[in-house]
């Protein structure tokens, strides 16, 4: 019961913040990430809109940080998209990779396996032809597997 109430509240809070994303630094950002975003994209995380049309598939828990499979897909038509980036907030170097896309791709799709030093948000960011940025975020919990 309590939790439901909490959930309803947090959902509302989430929506409230999304409606006014520039009021404060985006939740969960790190100085390293902001630095990288500034260097490579020239924007702050708070300026990037999180949208449902970008889909980031990644495991909720990874048994090994050495190899975390991720897939970025989007319904946004390929001729409206220019570039794709993958970042991991808490990695020593948050930038993982970026892909220049063209209409010849037919579709926004990029799948790979990445390294994660610790539990962190993974972000897939698209630059659209109109100069705006959109993204998807997923937290991946890195845990320890095996005998030790």
């Amino acid at each position, binding site marked *: 019961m309590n939790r439901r109430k909490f959930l309803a509240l947090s959902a509302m809070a989430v929506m409230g913040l999304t409606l006014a994303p520039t009021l404060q630094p985006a939740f969960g950002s790190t100085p390293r990430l902001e630095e990288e975003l500034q260097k490579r994209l020239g924007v702050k995380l708070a300026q990037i809109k999180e949208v449902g049309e970008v889909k980031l598939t990644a495991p909720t828990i990874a048994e090994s940080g*050495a*190899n*975390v*499979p991720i*897939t970025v897909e989007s319904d946004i038509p*390929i001729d409206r998209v220019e570039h794709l980036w*993958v970042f*991991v907030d808490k*990695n*020593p*170097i948050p*930038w*993982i*990779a*970026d*892909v*220049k*896309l*063209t*209409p*010849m*791709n*037919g*579709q*926004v*799709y*990029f*799948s*790979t*396996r*990445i*390294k994660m030093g610790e539990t962190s948000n993974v972000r897939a960011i698209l630059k659209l032809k109109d100069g705006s940025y959109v993204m998807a975020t997923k937290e991946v919990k890195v845990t320890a597997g095996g005998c030790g």
Partner: protein
Amino acid sequence: MAIGAGILRVPKEAKKGEVVRVQMVITHPMSPPRKDPATGQEVPPHTLTKLELFYNNRLVSTVNMGAGISANPFMAIALKVDESGVVRIAYEDNKGGKWDRTAEIKVT
């Protein structure tokens, strides 16, 4: 087999206008800069830096990457196929290694 060998996999056949997945695995350590625990010396990074995807010699995509990609990288990218042709990937690392691989798709 040495560093840079790999597998490039595409469907052998596709319909005109179909979007297919170009999958690849490349053997590469993708090692970040680190200190050798034994000697304490700095070991420079060794990673793939760039991969280009061509279809019939037209550049489709360029991937830039670093040590954040796992060792022996796997990647998959979409490709729209309008005619039969040759998929080529060309990739290079930060120590001057350059390789390429090709595969064919027949449009039916």
